[in-house]
């Protein structure tokens, strides 16, 4: 009958045919094997790709696993594939996404009003744009007067930013550490600046 295949090879076949990331839980279901064995199989497969000089590697992304081309090959492959990556998100869009993602992670989804409060500007247009591009989606309404819509991130959000899950986002400590490393210290008290005409004529870009 069927040839006995190593579990890692079966996992490889599953990941190959699947269009979206497969979680270890799902793989265990599909293959009818305990999840611990599947995890061991995934590690084995990952090592096989890494050691075998393959153009492919195993990537943990969007709450699952996928086979992808190696990141180090990107310059070569982008040229061969003729791919131009044109889409870049604006700073405003990244801010809105950050707010929604962190609130989503804290299981306290944000409303448009929440986003606006943090940013100090009306953000409805950005939210709409991000929803059209499937980075965020509506997730019910908040049980407060006016019952505003709640927004959460989508699998596409995780995939686009190469995140395993929302816990993969840096936590507050890590974020605040970014400022301490910044070349222009903002925490140091400074002498009173000449407020009428700032001496610095070449301003640094905002953070």
């Amino acid at each position, binding site marked *: 009958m069927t040839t006995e295949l190593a579990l890692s090879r079966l996992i490889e076949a599953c990941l190959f045919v699947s269009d979206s990331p497969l979680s270890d839980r799902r793989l265990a279901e599909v293959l009818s094997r305990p999840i611990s064995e599947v995890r061991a199989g995934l590690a084995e497969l990952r090592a096989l790709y890494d050691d075998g000089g393959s153009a492919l590697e195993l990537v943990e992304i969007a709450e699952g696993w996928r086979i*992808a081309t190696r990141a180090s090959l990107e310059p070569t492959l982008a040229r061969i594939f003729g791919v131009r990556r044109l889409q870049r*998100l604006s700073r405003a869009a990244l801010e809105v996404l950050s707010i929604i993602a962190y609130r989503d992670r804290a299981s306290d989804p944000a409303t448009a009003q929440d986003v606006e409060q943090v*940013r100090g500007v009306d953000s409805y247009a950005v939210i709409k744009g991000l929803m059209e591009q499937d980075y965020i989606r509506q997730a019910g309404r908040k049980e407060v007067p006016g019952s505003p819509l709640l927004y959460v991130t989508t699998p596409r959000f995780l995939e686009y930013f190469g995140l395993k899950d929302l816990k993969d986002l840096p936590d507050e400590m890590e*974020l605040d550490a970014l400022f301490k490393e910044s070349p222009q210290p903002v925490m140091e008290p400074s002498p009173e600046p000449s407020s009428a005409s700032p001496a610095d004529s070449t301003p640094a870009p*905002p953070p």
Partner: protein
Amino acid sequence: MDAMPVQVEGEAGGAAEPGGFTVTLDRFTGPLDLLLYLIKKNQMDILELPVAPITDQYVQYIESQKDVNLEVAGEYMAMASELLQLKSRMILPRPPVLESEESDPRRALVDRLLLYRRIQAAGGVLKDRSIAAAKRFYRGTVDLAAPYRKGVILLQEATLFTLLAEYRIVLDAARGRRRPPEEIAIDASLVEERSTDILRRLSGVPFGEIVFDEVYFVAAPRVEVLVLLLSLLELSRLHLILVRQEAPFAAIRLEPGPRFRSDVPPASLLQSEQVFETDETPLPASPSRGEEVSAGAGMT
């Protein structure tokens, strides 16, 4: 307003302002962004926010930008008034009982700034992550089997702007390939009507002369201009009118030609020449028609 997410980040440098600022408002994502920028620029301590100087700078900056974009200024103006209010509250003497950290009127604004700065940092992290993530290709994202040319855009990643750019390329290519039409369909009766009209005008004027401007309407549809041109050519070919222009760009004058007769109705003048075909089908402006006409004219 906020830029749409699809928009590529603009690194537009604004015009230099008298105060030494060289950036414009649309560079900032909002009033808090501008405030953080000013704080960082002046190396101020965000926790010990010097309200008076930052307010002065903020207001000065907004004033310098007011003419640029009124709509954007709205949200910035709200922050300006908030700052001014804060500034006056800082100046007023506070009761010593409440002189604690909790009662610091700056507290709310500082908290907002700290939170916003954190969000911006998170945005920066996200951006870095997206750049790193874009280095990997997944199955089914590149269709190499489809006929394609280098530099083609994946539809998945196409934005309205990339689509517009592509549309323009296709349009230009089509334009380059377009040939001049071989046939122009113009109803012959239109030319006849127009010719008759010109002849009637000619017989109606005392000095037997009309200026081209009198029969030509600048705003006329293209077909009408074409009809007029054909009529004038036809009439002059039949020696029913003379067309004169004294100098380049001078007024073009029309006067009766050698065969013009004011006692004959204009329609018969034309008909006697059998210039126009009698059927109603549009005439092709092809060489064969020209031969036909000249042959007919020669016989009379």
